[in-house]
């Protein structure tokens, strides 16, 4: 079963190719079938199996351009398998729930499926150049989706998003090449061993730490590298936004855990206080900016900066509980933010507006939808018994004894954000309808079942997080198990 990840990646791609050839009517069903099978298969990826190499299972190796050191090497550990699952899952619901723009159905599905597949390549890659290629190539479908199907400001949003993220990744490329020249390999596991054994020039590692931090922090939209996020998220079509905010932004945090910290040497360790501080600033900044918005999509987008700030803190503090919480929270954020963006899409489709001031009356018109929306908001503000609580609690718990001030600031920001989110949702769903043109939000069977499934996951993870936490705790630190003693 070593080819598992290949199948998971290839299925949506094959579906995308077929969907772009057949008639527009069948494009959707083919896309759903391809991505759904991939999603089911990626559940298998969580279970240990196949060849096992230094903490990774389902390890697969095949040459691509061996002269350049570029190999198809894949491997999964708990963290990456969960993220692959998240990506395939978000792909499926994006295809199911969000209708494609009428004039370019096939191009739309093509972009979503390709973006998902390339993101998965990045998550599962054990070759650092392959990771980079997927990391950057995944931007192209997003660029196309924003530019072709996005909101009013799409052209500017697309260019800004692309230029920002590519500049970050160009730095990463230079550092990766530097590592290759010093060590002669792009193989992650070999590099990891060499770095751990102190066989690589520290000044190179310092450059790697800086460059990769910039690349990953841009992707995860850590303040002050978040500037692309607002315009991009607001203008991205919802289907792609699920992937962009839910899965691809996680590549940033994943990169920090997988690459920056283990391969950055001592200098990366010394960057940790800075990263934690930036994370705390992101939490507060995101909350403040969100509070200034009246567009609910913008509120969700900027609150996402807050959440990512938390996740970044948990990822880097160097505490096992916090890191597991961070991995879990990546999953939670994907589910919750995805659900919120879907709701937001429904609201703007049926009500004709996303402005808080123009909404209202949803509670009485669409009781099920409003209750689900409220639940998703609870999860987003991390109320107990929802999934968000578990993740944030673990992160705070782990981070607090190492960085008390930053953590305190972050918690304060989170509380502010929570109050604002709830107030906004309250204003937009209660009361009477403020617009004459609005229609009642009526959910179809598939839409209803997707939202219910998301709700079930939110409560399920919130009530019984331990199975997922067990998987999330397998997040790469075992790779260096020989070097660093494993904390309980």
């Amino acid at each position, binding site marked *: 079963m070593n080819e598992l990840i290949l199948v998971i990646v290839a299925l949506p791609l094959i579906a995308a190719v077929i969907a772009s050839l057949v008639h527009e009517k069948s494009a959707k069903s083919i896309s759903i079938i391809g991505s759904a099978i991939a999603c089911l298969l990626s559940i298998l990826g969580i279970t240990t199996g196949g060849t096992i190499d230094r903490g990774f299972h389902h390890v697969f190796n095949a040459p691509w*351009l061996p002269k350049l050191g570029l190999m198809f090497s894949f491997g999964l550990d708990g963290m990456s398998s969960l993220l692959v699952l998240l990506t395939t899952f978000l792909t499926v619901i994006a295809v199911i729930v969000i209708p494609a723009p009428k004039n370019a159905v096939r191009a739309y599905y093509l972009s979503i499926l390709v973006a998902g597949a390339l993101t998965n390549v990045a998550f599962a890659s054990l070759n650092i150049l392959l990771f980079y290629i997927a990391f950057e*190539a995944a931007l192209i479908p997003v660029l196309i989706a924003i530019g072709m199907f996005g909101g009013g400001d799409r*052209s500017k949003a*697309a260019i800004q998003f*692309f230029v920002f993220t590519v500049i970050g990744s*160009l730095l990463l490329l230079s550092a990766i090449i530097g590592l290759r020249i010093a060590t002669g390999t792009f193989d992650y596991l070999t590099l990891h061993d060499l770095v751990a054994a102190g066989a690589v020039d520290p000044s190179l590692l310092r450059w790697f730490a800086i460059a990769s931090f910039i690349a990953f922090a841009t992707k995860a939209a850590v303040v002050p590298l978040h500037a692309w996020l607002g315009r991009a998220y607001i203008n991205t079509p919802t289907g792609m936004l699920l992937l962009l905010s839910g899965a691809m932004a996680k590549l940033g945090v994943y990169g920090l855990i997988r690459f920056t910290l283990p391969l950055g040497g001592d200098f990366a360790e010394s960057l940790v206080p800075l990263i934690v501080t930036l994370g705390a600033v992101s939490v507060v900044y995101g909350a403040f900016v969100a509070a200034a918005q009246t567009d609910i999509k913008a509120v969700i987008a900027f609150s996402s900066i807050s959440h990512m700030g938390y996740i970044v803190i948990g990822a880097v503090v160097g505490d096992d509980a916090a890191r597991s919480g961070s991995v879990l929270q990546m999953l939670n954020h994907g589910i919750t933010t995805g659900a919120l963006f879907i709701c937001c899409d429904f609201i703007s489709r049926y009500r004709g507006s996303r402005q808080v001031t123009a909404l209202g009356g949803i509670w009485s018109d669409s009781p099920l939808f409003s209750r689900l929306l409220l639940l998703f908001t609870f999860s987003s503000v991390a109320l107990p018994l929802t999934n968000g609580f578990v993740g944030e609690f673990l992160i705070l718990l782990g981070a607090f004894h190492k960085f008390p001030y930053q953590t305190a600031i972050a918690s304060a920001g989170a509380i502010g954000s929570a109050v604002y989110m709830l107030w906004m949702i309250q204003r937009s769903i209660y009361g009477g309808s403020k617009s004459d043109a609005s229609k009642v939000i009526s959910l179809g069977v598939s839409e209803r079942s997707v939202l219910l499934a998301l709700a079930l996951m939110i409560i399920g993870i919130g009530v019984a997080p331990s199975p997922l936490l067990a998987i999330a705790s397998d997040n790469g630190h075992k790779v260096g198990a020989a070097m660093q003693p494993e904390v309980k």
Partner: protein
Amino acid sequence: MNFGDIHAAGAPILMAVGGCVVLLTDLASKRSATRKFGTFLAILFCIASMVCSYTLGGQLRTAFSNGIAVEGLVVTMQILLAAIAAITIVASSEILQSFHLPKGEYRALILLASAGAMVLVQSLDLVNAFVGIEIMSVAFYVLAGYRRAQAASEEAGAKYFLMGAFVSAILLFGIALIYGSVGLAMKANGLELPQGYSFTNIVTISKAIHQVPGFGTSPLFLLGAVMLIGSLMFKAGVAPFHMVAPDVYQGAPAPIAGFLATTSKVAAFTILMRFFTILAGADTGAAINVVVIGLALLSIIVGNTGAANQKSIKRLFGYSSVAHGGYIVLGLLASLGTESQAAAITAVTFYIVAYAITTIGSFAVVAWLGKDGEDADAISAYRGLGKRNLGAAITLGIFLLSLSGIPLTVGFLTKLGVFMALLSAGGTWVAVVALIGSAIGLYAYLRVISEMFFVDSTQQETSSTDGASKLVAVSAATLVIVMGVFPSQALLPSFEASVTAPPVSGDEVK
């Protein structure tokens, strides 16, 4: 002289003969009858030249009293040059038709320019290099101004000619100084001129550099070398001699612009590569390094910023060619280090080939979308192209992504190769500046993509009939992707030949 010599120089000879034959056939027969036949004849000579190059194989051989040398690198480049000539002739037949321009002379000029480029590529003696570069340049001046009735084309020709002649004089003075300094140094140190080599031969120069202490830093030689390198860089369109390139590409008809941009780069960079191999590991002080780094970074910055706010797409490609010239020079810079030399030569060769394909394709799209004999030059003409002509938009989009070096296109691998060579030669900060430059360039290319796909327009469907340009553009785009994903299948066989037989260095005469 013997048959072996003729065979070694066969490719340019065939092209030159082809040029004369095409010209004479055109004179001797009625216009309408020769139209198809002339194209056929020209293509035939291009193919014959390719075959001739191919049969030489990767073995190093010298001919004409060591005036020329042929090995894998030269064979690769000559085949590439012949292919560019053939493609240009095919792609421009319809545009010439609509401009009512004479075709016979046109084909002859393309063949003669390629013959000059081939002579340049294979020359081991600087005298041959000079003759080759002049054959190429004189044909270029005429081609740039080929559309006489149009002021822009005429102006492009005049500018190109004045700058080109000026630079030729500088090149020549460089050669004269190198000739004198090598001669004087060898005489002063009692060194024998190697048997069968002249003072202007690269092998002799290499001997002087490596055997005469202090020669590499002598002012006469350095002045000559800098003049030689600088003027060859001009021929390749590298800053600060770049002013002409965007003008010429904007003024010349699109297929000719593509031809000028690629042939000049292929030829000039190949001979530079050979000249640099003898400088590798030699003590030439910092002068040459500083000049080369300066030229490379200047080109990258000037080219990318110049491209950023263009209204004309041919000008954009002109500036982009300046920037890409800069990246190629970075690769050449890496070839000055003895350890990174092999990797650098591989990277530069690959870069040149990939750049040629991308550029020919890009200009073919411009010709393809042209209307009534005018190129689709204004970037605003591309607004909403994705809705009107999806195929053309995707094709151009692929080229633009490749030019900006995005993975899964060949542009990424070329940049990767150059940066790998550069970083292993220790040019870290140079690489960082270059990366910043390519980020600026990214914006320029994205702007066109954005115009094509992201902006709605009310423009009407363009009814283009230029099938030849379309064919060229689409096949080039396919190659860009195939080479970007599986370069080993598409190109590596010929390309490895050039790597296993590195260009002649002075080693064998030490």
